[in-house]
């Protein structure tokens, strides 16, 4: 049984209090809104994609520490990456969060691996994946996504 310290790791708390790329991107060309109707968490994700590469990324919105830190860390991990690579990171992250005990793709995940403890807290998985589903929606040209 994972404890609180597996969930609220220092890096998560740090991203929560100082989220990276927490801003609108004025020249974004792919944006999407993500919403978790169950809890009211809300995120707007801004992507500037140039020739298949995520040139800039930012997010705004309200949510718990887990959704905020997950969004912040996501922006760091996808900024400068190709769209294909971002989708690979999504897959690795989604697998890590939803398949407890599965083998992790540590090369792809990097720092994101510190969020793996969330998979022991089923009620909080939606918080962690909200930003990620929003990114997927933005890259697929959808403007809205909900998780519940």
């Amino acid at each position, binding site marked *: *049984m994972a*404890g*609180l310290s597996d*969930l*609220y790791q220092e890096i998560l*708390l740090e991203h929560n209090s100082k989220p990276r790329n927490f801003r609108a991107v004025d020249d974004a060309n792919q944006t999407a809104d993500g919403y978790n109707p*169950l*809890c*009211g*968490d*809300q995120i707007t994700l801004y992507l500037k994609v140039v020739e298949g590469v995520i040139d800039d990324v930012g997010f705004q919105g*309200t*949510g*718990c*520490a*887990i959704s*905020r830190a997950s969004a912040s860390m996501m922006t760091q991990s996808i900024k400068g990456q190709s769209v294909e690579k971002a989708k690979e990171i999504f897959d690795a992250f989604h697998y890590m969060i939803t398949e407890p005990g599965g083998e992790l793709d540590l090369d792809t995940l990097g720092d994101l691996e510190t969020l793996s403890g969330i998979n022991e*807290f089923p*009620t*909080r998985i939606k*918080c962690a994946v909200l930003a990620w589903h929003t990114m997927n929606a933005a890259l697929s040209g959808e403007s809205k996504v909900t998780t519940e």
Partner: protein
Amino acid sequence: MTTTFNVNKIRNDFPILKQQVNGCPLVYLDNGATSQKPQSVIDAIVNYYSTTNSNVHRGVHTMSQQATDGYEGARAKVRQFINASDDREIIFTRNTTEGINLVAHSYGRQNIGPGDDIIVSNMEHHSNIVPWQMLCEEKGANLRVVPIDDAGELLVDEYEKMLSSRTKLVSITHVSNALGTILPAAQIARMAHAHGAPILFDGAQAVPHMPVDVQELDCDFYVFSGHKLFGPTGIGILYGKAEYLEAMPPFLGGGEMIKSVTFEKTIYNDLPYKFEGGTPDIAGAIGLGAAIDYVNDLGFDQITAHEDELLRYGTDALSTIEGLKIIGTAEHKAGILSFVMDLAHPHDIGTILDEQGIAVRTGHHCAQPVMQRFQIPATARASLAFYNTKEDIDALVKGIDRVIEVFS
């Protein structure tokens, strides 16, 4: 005659309260979502299925009669519990939501038309907003919303200004689920009647905490759920004045709600059966009857006194915590402590409390307009029942200390 209020003895009647959650003794502070069930309610349901299970109002056999007696006996208990004048005015539903929807479909579609007003308040549960929005959309009527102040009190003057000859229904909560505010129900009803409008009260959060007398309130409809009143899920009550219910068309067509059926013409059954199409939740009704017996044995004098003391104790304790703000500070409140913290989002508060066996609700409490009014995304909500103790509040305060520790 009620017995002496002994909370430890009462807790022994609730088997679930003896549980450990995450290695800690359960501290159950989510009674606003659903309450726990005393052994007598559990026994009544088990006993019904073990000895009596049959369909009601149908067979000539003995068990069918016993099931009918149990079911109708529960109706009589509900009638006494809210002091309705006639068993025919007590309709079994699934829950509060169904009761409101029944009135919206049956009364609303017959009596509300283009340009009419339906009045609700800013502190309604979604179940007392959405059915009226749907009706307004269908009929071209207007939904008017009585504002609330920063304490969570209804602005009665604004309500008065809103009432007019266009007002065709007022549907307002008796106790706010998100804020705990107890509304001045009798006054609200009087004012609606002065303009010829019927009044519905959503009593889901009121009936577990205070005596309700529908004749004294002079309300036209009153709805609540069994499961928040220490009874089972799946059973609820719609009280309606007979004059209204008689004039209303049925809600669900089917068995039970008819006197005779031919392909040319169906004659509807009398009250209350006209509104109880299909086999009802017989065990649920009997369980609710047992819950009402349990509450009556304790008596509201003692329940209210105990809960008021706990609410005061909890309000004082939470008020001393730096960076914590209580949302909902009305003068008259039922046992609800909704709060936000500077340091942590309500969900994080909820998870950290849960790790210590403390169950609270976090989120918008199906009352998003309340959250919008206070410009917050969510709250953490501790909601009390008569089996809670000062030790439960102490555990909550200690749990919040842990939240502060994690996020500092």
